[in-house]
């Protein structure tokens, strides 16, 4: 356990050093949040019909999304990618540690460190100037935190799975290209799930990605009934386990093959 924490904290600290990049990214995301907010507001102004999410809540949803964008498995580990490219990944694979665990910890750091750097100022600015609201009560806050933790756990499992595919299969690059936009859309980051056409929603519900964004955000907004909350957690857990098992299996098989072939 201690070694896992060591990996986590080391990687976390390295990523925190990219402060300059974080500062610059803040400006970009502020800009994006503004544009999206204005666009959605314009849409809402164009129709008087009642919507699954209110105009005010959409604003909060959008800013939450901008702040917590890093939690999404939208990029792979650049170091691992570099290792694949120059061939040193063989050394990594043959190390006598629990490789999956180590990579999971790396993913955890990668998902959390840069996000936290950006999220705090963004949420402050959005809350003060752009009409973003805090959770209505303690119940919503707790539900939000719990579902977010579940989302992070799944996101890291999925990221690690993608990193493993990158290393283990030839088509890894293809996965790396097509998964992120898909995840971005199906999670609710691009557009709140409830605003999608009705026939699309059942499909989105089965897939795990909704749990990454839409579910925690709805919990924040107080729109997640308790029964759904329990179901959502179970959903996150099942998909996380699936990804972990798949990732571990692929990695073990690949290491075994490498040892047999002599690296």
């Amino acid at each position, binding site marked *: 356990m201690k070694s896992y924490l060591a990996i986590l904290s080391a990687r976390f600290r390295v990523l925190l050093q990219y402060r300059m990049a974080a500062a*610059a990214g803040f*400006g*970009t995301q502020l800009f*994006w949040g503004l544009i999206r907010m*204005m666009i959605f507001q314009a849409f809402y*102004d*164009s129709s008087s019909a009642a919507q699954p999410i209110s105009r005010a809540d959409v604003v909060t949803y959008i800013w939450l999304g901008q702040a917590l964008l890093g939690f999404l498995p939208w990029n792979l580990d650049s170091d691992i990618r570099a290792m694949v490219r120059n061939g040193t990944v063989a050394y990594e694979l043959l190390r006598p540690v629990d490789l999956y665990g180590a990579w999971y910890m790396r993913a955890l750091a990668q998902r959390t460190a840069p996000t936290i750097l950006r999220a705090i100022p963004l949420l402050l600015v959005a809350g003060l100037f752009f009409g973003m609201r805090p959770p209505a009560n303690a119940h919503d806050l707790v539900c939000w935190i719990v579902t977010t933790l579940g989302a992070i756990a799944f996101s890291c499992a999925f990221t690690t799975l993608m990193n493993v595919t990158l290393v283990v299969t030839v088509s890894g690059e293809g996965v790396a*290209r097509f998964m992120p*936009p898909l995840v971005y859309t199906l999670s609710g980051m691009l557009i709140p799930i409830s605003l999608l*056409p009705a026939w699309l929603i059942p499909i989105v519900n089965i897939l795990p990605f909704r749990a990454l964004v839409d579910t925690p955000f709805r919990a924040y907004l107080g729109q997640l009934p308790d029964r759904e909350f329990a179901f959502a957690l179970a959903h996150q857990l099942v998909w996380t386990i699936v990804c972990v098992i798949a990732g571990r299996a692929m990695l073990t098989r690949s290491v075994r093959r490498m040892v047999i072939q002599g690296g």
Partner: protein
Amino acid sequence: MQDTLALYFRLVSVCLRSKMQYRASFVLLSAGQFFSLALEFLAIWALFARFGSLKGWSLAEIGLFYGVTHGSFAVAEVIGRGFDTFSDMIKSGDFDRFLLRPRGTVLQVAGREFDGRLGRLAQSAVVFAWAIKSLPIAWDAGKVALLGAMFIGGVCLFYGLFVLQATMSFWTIETLEIMNAVTYGGTETGQYPLTIYKPWFRSIFTFVIPLACVNYLPAGLLFGHSAVSSMGTALLAISPVAGLLFLGLSLLSWQYGVKRYCSTGS
């Protein structure tokens, strides 16, 4: 001048030939781009399906804005990649080599890179074609010319933004992500008519970065929307020239940047 153009095309063809050696990853990258952008447009479509219109604008009209803006950005992105990635050159010190050749720096930087990823171009072309088909506009030579001017003005505008971004690397090597915000954000902004944005935002994108001049204002002539026709037809028709002027100003700032580089060293 001819000789300069000839060299430019030669440099570009050299880039393309180098890139062709990595064909497979190209196709993959282009496909990924196309997929990603297609999803984004589908989101817009979904929103229209739910809300019916966007402040009086229909999906097809938005499609036109989208097609022209993204299309001109796509072209600028492909041909302007030399400026887009210019800060790498400053970091590695390779820009000195360009200064040691008896040719202008703009020519060499413009020709050093060429992005072969056509995903964005293809996707915006698809949206554009669909929008044109769906819009009840009576097309004549004037309107087609206007469309062309919007497109070229847009390419000049975005190319100018890339040149500005590159010029900034003469002053600081820190990646100025804010410029990315302006170029990609500008594209995202331009895919909708400016009326949907707040007034202060609108002014930035009309007067500082004349995005409005290359798409929204001239488009008013195409649609005959009342909000715009108060400005006078002639003025609207030539507003894409603002894009060209913007590019001219960026190139001037570039020359200033090069001079500064030569007097302060790297």
